């Protein structure tokens, strides 16, 4: 480990601990039913990250509402709801078009024709879209069922090159 990395990590550690604290505070306030403060802390947590050019882990980041950064805790301030059948096709189409920029040609054709995907789903195991609605800004976090399990790159084991722990250095 070079000295540069060490110094950089130490400088970042302060910001990380601050973001960690703010995230916990946001969750605490969401739990105590103070949605405004919770959203404020969540937003601040995000802003501190952007200012210091630092990234939250994607799984952690997704716990905050996309629009107002309120921590969404199912059962506490939101409920996991099923999407109605009529609106089932639309988000699927959208997702296909936006996310898969370079898919195979046959997949694109599937997205274009709205009639095809609808009968295909019930044939296999039935997948129902589920969403969390934010209680503050009414935006939705949808969990769209897709056949291909596309995972976030950062969450895959190949993405990790090396790990550093700050705890050891503090102890020394």
């Amino acid at each position, binding site marked *: 480990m070079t000295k540069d990395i060490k110094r950089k990590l130490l400088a970042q550690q302060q910001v990380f601990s601050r973001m960690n604290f703010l995230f*916990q505070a946001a969750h605490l306030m969401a739990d105590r039913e103070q949605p405004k403060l919770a959203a*404020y*802390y969540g937003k601040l947590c995000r802003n*501190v990250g952007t200012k210091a050019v630092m990234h939250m882990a994607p799984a952690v980041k997704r716990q905050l509402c996309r629009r107002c950064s309120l921590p969404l805790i199912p059962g506490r301030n939101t409920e996991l709801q099923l999407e109605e059948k009529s609106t089932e096709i639309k988000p699927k189409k959208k997702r296909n078009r936006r996310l898969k920029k370079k898919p195979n040609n046959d997949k694109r054709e599937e997205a274009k024709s709205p009639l095809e995907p609808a009968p295909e789903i019930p044939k296999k195991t039935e997948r129902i879209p589920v969403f969390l609605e934010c209680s503050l800004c009414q935006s939705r976090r949808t969990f769209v069922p897709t056949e291909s399990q596309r995972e976030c790159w950062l969450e895959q084991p190949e993405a990790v090159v090396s790990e550093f722990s700050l705890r050891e250095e*503090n102890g020394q």
Partner: protein
Amino acid sequence: MDHATADLKEFITDLVMPHQRCNVNIISDHITMLDGTKIKKQHTRKRRAHKSATLNRREYAKLGLNTLPTRQMKYEDALPLNSLWKGYIQEHLGLREGDQVPQVHDSRYEEFSKQLVKMDLHGAQLTVIQSKCKTLEGLHGICVMDTKNILKLLGLDHRIRSIPKSECVFGLKVGNMDFTIFGQHLNIRPAERSVKKIKSYVEPFK
């Protein structure tokens, strides 16, 4: 069909040279309407521009996120936040039990004071020691909100009070350490505070 093209025919005959006017003949099958549906690209771009992922400032204010209710929060609600903050500040400053404030000649003094400026104030128990406004002096509470110019303290009487930073001197207690913070130097947005470069020497009052 004749009725529909009559206007067109009249219009076109006006434009054509006089001795050719008798030859004007409009075949209705050849008419192409120019105002059709928009092409797909325009549609998608418009929709995308309309729907933004994050709230803008106006929407944010409309939801009432910039203002806090004055009397709805209990002091007891903020106590867990305070205990959370205590854990955070120990981690942030690297404190252990029974640590003292480093003296000016100490080697870690400079770093310590730099950390001190960068700390987060949400959840801290603050007391106003000195102020230009005499009524603010002696107020005590847990800080719940921190903006560029104002600290919001939740007092023991379950009221949230806004206190301007620039006019006040705050007292802060961490374990057995006592800090005095000149509010003037806190006049930075809380998100920027952890990135901002700080001068090694600042005057307490200008």
